[in-house]
């Protein structure tokens, strides 16, 4: 952790994420207004003392919406990634550890799924599930699964022939024990790095789904949806679009920076 904070990229990422974390945890508490409250007489206003970031088409306070929207946006990214990591990691671990026919069958399947671009895959699944934030999250998780499974598998393969694994096998430990206690702990680092970067990607995918009308739905304050709803009004109050846009970019940036720093620190080749 201290190493991370001494790393300039890592520090920048950590600072950004700290801000985002505060918004995610305390956003609804520190929001000056109810994010859904209409102020029909103050529609599409610029920043003022009463409304720091101005108001949207219904006169709702943009700052309050951004603050409450952090939760749905960030949790979307984290949730989708963690579900994808859990499912993909498990599959990759099993494929890599068992090997043989099971491994090649799983790998062929994953290759097939990987050939469909992430966004299209997500759209197909969301269409089946029927849109909405929860379904979109599940879809992103499913779309992430093959890629993460592949990474997990290749890490497992590189670990599998290391001395400590061979030693455990020689001790006569059960395969389950070897996977759980010897292989898994040593594959965690690369997966965490990959997952951190994927969170930013998931946030952007979620926002894009909101934009296409398949992700979060009104009156949610998810940032991508806020942009989609406000685009019609952007010439009357550009902050309607700019504020959630900047928020998405900062969150994605935070996870990107942190992920890169983690990679530098964990990858032996990366210390440069």
């Amino acid at each position, binding site marked *: 952790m201290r190493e991370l904070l001494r790393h300039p990229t890592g520090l920048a990422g950590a600072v950004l994420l700290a801000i985002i974390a505060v918004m995610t945890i305390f956003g609804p508490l520190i929001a000056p207004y109810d994010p*859904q*409250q*209409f102020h*029909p007489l103050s*529609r599409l206003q610029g920043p003022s003392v009463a409304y720091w970031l101005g108001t949207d*088409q*219904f*006169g709702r306070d943009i700052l309050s919406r951004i603050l409450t929207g952090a939760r749905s946006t960030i949790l979307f990214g984290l949730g989708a990634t963690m579900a994808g990591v859990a499912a993909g990691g498990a599959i990759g671990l099993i494929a890599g550890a068992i090997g043989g026919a099971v491994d090649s069958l799983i790998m062929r399947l994953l290759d097939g799924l990987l050939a469909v671009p992430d966004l299209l895959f997500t759209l197909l699944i969301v*269409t089946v599930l*029927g*849109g*909405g934030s929860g379904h979109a999250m599940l879809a992103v998780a499913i779309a992430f699964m093959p890629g993460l499974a592949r990474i997990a598998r290749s890490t497992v393969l590189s670990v599998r022939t290391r001395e400590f694994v061979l030693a455990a096998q020689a001790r006569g430990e059960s395969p389950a024990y070897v996977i759980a206690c010897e292989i898994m702990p040593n594959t965690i680092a690369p997966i965490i790095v990959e997952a951190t970067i994927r969170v930013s990607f998931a946030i952007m995918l979620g926002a894009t789904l909101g934009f296409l*009308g*398949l992700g979060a*739905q*009104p*009156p949610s304050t998810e940032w991508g949806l806020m942009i989609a*709803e406000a*685009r*019609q*009004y*952007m*010439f*009357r109050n550009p902050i309607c679009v700019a504020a959630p846009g900047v928020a998405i970019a900062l969150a994605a940036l935070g996870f990107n920076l942190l992920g890169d720093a983690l990679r530098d620190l964990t990858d032996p080749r990366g210390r440069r």
Partner: protein
Amino acid sequence: MTQLPITRRSALAGLAAATALPDLSYAQGAPKTGGTPKSGGTLKISHPTRVASLNVLQISGPAEYLAVDMLYSGLTRMGPDMRAQPDLALEWSADADAKSFIFKLRPNVSFHDGKPFTAEDVVATIKTIQDPKSASPARTVLSMIGDVAAVDPLTVKFTLNSSYADLPISLAHANARIVSAETLKGPLTALDTKANGTGPFKQESFDSARMLKLVKNPAYHQPGKPHLDAVEMHLFPDLAAETQNYLSGAVDAMLEVQQADFKRISTAPGSVGVRTPSGRFVNVVMRQDQKPFDDVRVRRAMAMAVDRPTLVDIILEGYGRPAGDNVISPGYRYLLETTAPKYDPTAAKKLLAEAGYPNGLKIPLICSNRPAIRSQVGIAIKEMAKPAGFDIDVQTMPHDTYLANVWMKGQFYIGYWGMQSTEDQAFTLLFTTDAAFADTAWNSKEFDALVAKGRATIDDAERRKIYAEAQALMVRDVPSIIPFFQDVLTANRSYVKNWVGHPLARYFFVENVWLDKA
């Protein structure tokens, strides 16, 4: 910025809307704007929804209506004054009880492929529409036609199953344009991509992903028209891109303008906003065959919990008129002036308590996310109805999910409908027991009887009385909340003359349009 009245109207917003009807003096062949029409030029129009098909018997998209209005002609056509004008029919007459009609056809009209237009084409088209296989939306509108026959090549006789005075209006239906008998002998799918009509423009090229290009029909039946050499319809799925494209001068007209953009577009240099009051509406469906909306007091409480003028202000940006749950808007012929329920959350709360909900009512309201106005109305109503004790949970969903799970089934959801040509069409679309989309389950025998009676009545005064009763019934029972009527908004560059709006948004009279350019 040229046409000042429009901008002034927009500035006055909702206040002026109820009275400021557009210039309706416009009629066929009588250009609204002064000056001698100049011939030539290409009119480029942008539109946000796709022209997926050119099948005039089936289409139902906003841009498709424009395309077929240019490619095809019907026997009659609805003028902006909501009366049937002669088109391929020159004149018509009915017998005393409106059960038999004779239509005299225009001579020397030919289809785009050069074949002459005769009574046989009319008979073939009507018969095809009546065949369920054609899947034409015009079928229900023309269901009263028992028989149609060619008396001679230029005379058609319609025999109706029951008296129906408005047949000339029904025949103006956008999907009842005349197709050549020869085309109809082949597979109907040929109509999807190839149009052979009698309209002012002929199909030149059709790429549904990008552009429909039409060229002048030199043999058009109105002498000296069309003025334009060609029309291009360009598809722009993203509204922001469409607006930027229009404002930068790349196209000459926009088929639809969003309320949010209308003021900016009307006041931009060289651009004119065209605003036409219409009977288009958003409604809140409250299904009456289950709790809680089986109780009229709940429905009335809901009606009182909606602040209609504010909805017009914040959702329509003032481009519309508050309505009072009566589907008949001022553009129809037999409007009964009723007053909209006043926004009164206190009274609504009291009524809700009387109906057995002293602690308020928690209920989900379903909105499709296309077009955005549905969820906007839902969210606004949620906020407005809060003080009245309604705890509304707005659930927006993608349009396809809505179609699969809620549409025609849901208990409390948002509908969105265009204006109809007649009272009868409006009533039988949604509100009679046998309506095509009877999603409110009102099932009022009294209302059904009035609608049936009005349909068979020929005397104008008598009809007005009957329709007034039907409307009063609707206001009393509140089968659905109709909070406002939305204007039809379009725009054109100032050198485009005679581009007009129409309350039905299905007739465009592009043959009158000309470009005042050097």
